[in-house]
């Protein structure tokens, strides 16, 4: 899956996903990717998020929506992502997945669980080029 969030020159924000899902899935299965709040979510007032991992689990917890709502309370994008994933891990300790979070002022962060680290890619004027960042998982 690719999950992407972006803010344009006018300060407008968007989020999206594209995936071919799980290998050997039961025919007809759809994961979290096309579900708003699960695979991705964007709210022009506060920010956006996109999640990746085990979609059958993520779609039960709406981590992208949770992360955006966490941003609304004023915490950092990284903390927002961590809090969203902690809700999943509390019920599914073996959960594997990650999330990227972007606030409406351009701050970004990521969180993950079930892997050693999670790599994601970013570009803004400060970075000047696409940069791959890596965060340790919860």
């Amino acid at each position, binding site marked *: 899956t*690719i999950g*992407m*969030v*972006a*803010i*344009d*020159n006018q*300060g*407008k*924000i*968007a*989020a*999206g*996903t*594209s*995936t*071919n*899902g*799980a*290998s*050997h*899935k*039961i*025919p*007809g299965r*759809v*994961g979290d990717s*096309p*579900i*708003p709040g699960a*695979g*991705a979510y*964007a709210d*022009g007032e506060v*920010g*956006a998020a996109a999640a*990746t*991992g*085990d*979609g*059958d*689990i*993520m779609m039960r917890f709406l981590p992208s929506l949770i992360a955006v709502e966490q941003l609304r309370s004023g915490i950092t994008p990284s903390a927002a992502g961590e809090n969203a994933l902690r809700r999943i891990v509390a019920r*599914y300790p*073996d959960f*594997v*997945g*990650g999330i*990227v979070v*972007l606030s409406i002022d*351009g*701050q*970004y962060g990521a969180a993950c669980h*079930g892997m050693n680290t999670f790599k994601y*890619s*970013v*570009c*803004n*004027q400060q970075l000047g080029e*696409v940069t791959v960042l890596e965060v340790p998982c919860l």
Partner: protein
Amino acid sequence: NSMIPVVVNTWPFINATEKAWETVYWKKMSAVDAVERGCIVCEKEQCDGTVGYGGSPDENGETTLDAMIMDGSTMNMGAVGALRRVKNAISVARHVLDYTQHSLLVGDQATEFAVSMGFKEEPLETNASTKIWQQWKQNNCQPNFWMNVSPDPASTCGPYKPATKGLTSKQHQQRGVKFGGEGNHD
């Protein structure tokens, strides 16, 4: 604010992020355009084998696609689920956003919508995805996502029927497939 514009992408899919950045920064197009164009790159490059055609075959060997695009400034969105026989899933989702009042179209009807909007209908399977599927069949259909069925899905292919014994809450939470990490994820 030097932090804006900005694009952020799950996983190190650099070419997709570069295309989104080009779209939003150099071409000064919208964030929705950036997300669509970035995802298109991954659909064409089959990023990680988890995006686009020719990956993640289902139990019948078919590749189907899911995609969504959401405009945070309007709270409008478009999405497709289990899209069959159309490669450019994110753009079909964009058409759901732009040309309908719905949010999510699925399955064969999503394909019909895509074709009516001018998208090409073609197989999503490749030699590589067919080989993955054949190896899975030869491995007694392991791993799979079934539980509480008969015959035993941990060792046998289907078709399956519900097991006759009652279910426990623990059985409901079993997860037999290690899924969600790099190279195999939603």
